[in-house]
């Protein structure tokens, strides 16, 4: 009797086949290689191989002075282009012991949060597109333009804002620009309820995303997921809440989970939509409060660029910088040595690197048609994340695992000792 029901759910039981998706595929926005093991339409196994968007940015950074590295870091990610400079400036300030004036801390917070609004709206549009709901994509991206225009007005650039500098920020937000920002935030405040209805009350969106790509709280903790991916699974984890930096300690930021929408978190795609849209509302509040409470004062602690360069050249030490990017925690590590302008070590850990493993439980048991939306649900950014590419001269890649390396090392010791 058991056999009968099993036959219906798994028609080719015991016999699976493998389909590759990527490195280049229309369902993916950036190159990554998936290898799915399928039983009929069900995914029973998945393997992920990153490394196709490696650009050697850290190595390039180690050949440039720190001010040049700052603008290089801005180009690690095209969508959250302020997250990496914010983390890098914190790391260098930590290493060199530079104080940042309070007003600059607030301005960094404001630009960082405006970017979160922009990035989450972009993601929501992409998610709608992956579901085949292109009307919603165009609508979301149309309203996203408002915040892009505001960012251009505040910073001078539409993307890659070039705002933070070691020890402060490069541009002030005067009162007139503050009013402009308030107007844009009011626009989003009025619009947001409608946008939430369009996503969360829509039958087709719910049918395609509810219980699709679920991630349990235990898996999220075990696999060290970060950002909205972890929060959708009910893990209250947010760098802004756990280790407040910039002005976040004054603004009392709290990690948002689906519980704020009065739903028990299951970590599926629907929950990630809830979390991201609620975070847009949260960011609007943060920016409004920050604009009102911003103290007067200096913008930078070392205003002269020549003085800053010579100060950084004399600095010695290591530092870390963490920032809650729209996709999760971004982490930068630098090591400076006195007398050398370039950082000796620069290490970047982008949020996608942490969230990559969360893909495996999310894909398990899903159908082939759910692959694009589940892949998009962690908001992946491959070019941020790729830091290693494995290749040998013949063109074939080979990976040596830890156990093999230990074995080789022990063999060498034995060989030397005879």
């Amino acid at each position, binding site marked *: 009797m058991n056999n009968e029901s099993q036959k219906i759910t798994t028609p080719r039981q015991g016999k699976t086949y493998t389909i590759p998706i990527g490195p280049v595929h229309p369902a993916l926005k950036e190159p990554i290689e998936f290898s799915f093991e399928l039983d009929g339409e069900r995914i029973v196994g998945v393997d992920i191989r990153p490394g196709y968007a490696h650009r050697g940015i850290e190595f390039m950074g180690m050949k*440039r*002075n720190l*001010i*040049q*590295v*700052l*603008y*290089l870091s*801005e*180009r690690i990610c095209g969508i959250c282009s302020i997250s990496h400079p914010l983390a890098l400036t914190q790391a260098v300030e930590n290493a060199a012991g530079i104080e940042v004036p309070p007003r600059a801390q607030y301005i960094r917070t404001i630009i960082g949060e405006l970017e979160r609004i922009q990035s989450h709206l972009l993601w929501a549009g992409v998610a709608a597109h992956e579901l085949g709901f292109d*009307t*919603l994509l165009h*609508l979301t991206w*149309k309203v996203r*333009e408002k915040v892009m*225009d505001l960012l*251009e*007005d505040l*910073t*001078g*650039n539409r993307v*890659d804002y*070039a705002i933070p*500098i070691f020890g402060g920020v*490069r*541009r002030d937000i005067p009162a007139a620009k503050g009013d402009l920002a308030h107007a844009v935030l009011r626009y989003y405040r009025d619009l947001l309820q*409608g*946008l939430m*209805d*369009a996503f969360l009350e*829509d039958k087709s969106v719910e049918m395609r995303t509810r219980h699709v790509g679920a991630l349990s709280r235990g898996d999220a903790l075990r696999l060290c997921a970060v950002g909205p991916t972890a929060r959708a699974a009910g893990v209250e984890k947010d760098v802004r809440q756990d280790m407040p930096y910039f002005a976040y300690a004054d603004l009392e930021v709290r990690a948002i989970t689906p519980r704020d929408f009065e739903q028990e978190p299951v970590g599926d795609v629907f929950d990630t939509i809830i979390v991201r849209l609620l975070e847009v509302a949260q960011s609007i509040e943060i920016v409004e409060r920050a604009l009102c409470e911003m103290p007067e004062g200096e913008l930078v602690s070392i205003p002269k*660029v*020549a003085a800053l*360069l010579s100060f950084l050249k004399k600095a010695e030490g290591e530092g870390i910088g963490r920032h809650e990017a729209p996709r999760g925690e971004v982490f930068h590590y630098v090591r400076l040595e006195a007398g050398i302008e370039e950082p000796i070590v620069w290490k970047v850990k982008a949020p996608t690197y942490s969230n990559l493993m969360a893909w495996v439980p999310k894909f398990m048991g899903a159908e082939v048609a759910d692959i694009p939306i589940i892949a998009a649900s962690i908001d992946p950014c491959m070019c941020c994340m790729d830091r290693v590419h494995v290749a040998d001269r013949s063109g074939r890649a080979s990976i040596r695992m830890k156990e093999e390396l230990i074995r080789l090392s022990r063999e060498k010791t034995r060989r030397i000792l005879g």
Partner: protein
Amino acid sequence: MIFVTLVRQLLDRPATNPFPTRHMPRSIIRLLERARRGKGAIHPPVPVPAGMRGKLVYDRDKCIGCQLCVRVCPARVIEFRSEQKKIRMHVARCTFCSQCVDACPVAALATSREFLLADTDRRSRNLIVE
């Protein structure tokens, strides 16, 4: 919300600006060339904000040749001409961070609001500032 928006869009003007023309011309280069000679009109671009970081402007007389801009430029836009002790900027490489403007001790550099810099030749006169 979706339905209301869709109905309203039948009457609204498009959200995007039809730049440089409403329909794709046969040759965009010829169209721009004619517009430059004042023969044809192009649809104007969206006005840019006051502080926009556009093409760099260089005041040659103010420059003291300190090379600080050369040191901070992340894209290696700036070439130092040692015989004249002046600089030459290759705007085609510029990332518009305006760090050189901040670094210049004598305010010889500035950003303008000019942003229409697309060209077929990266060494064209429009893309070299000296």
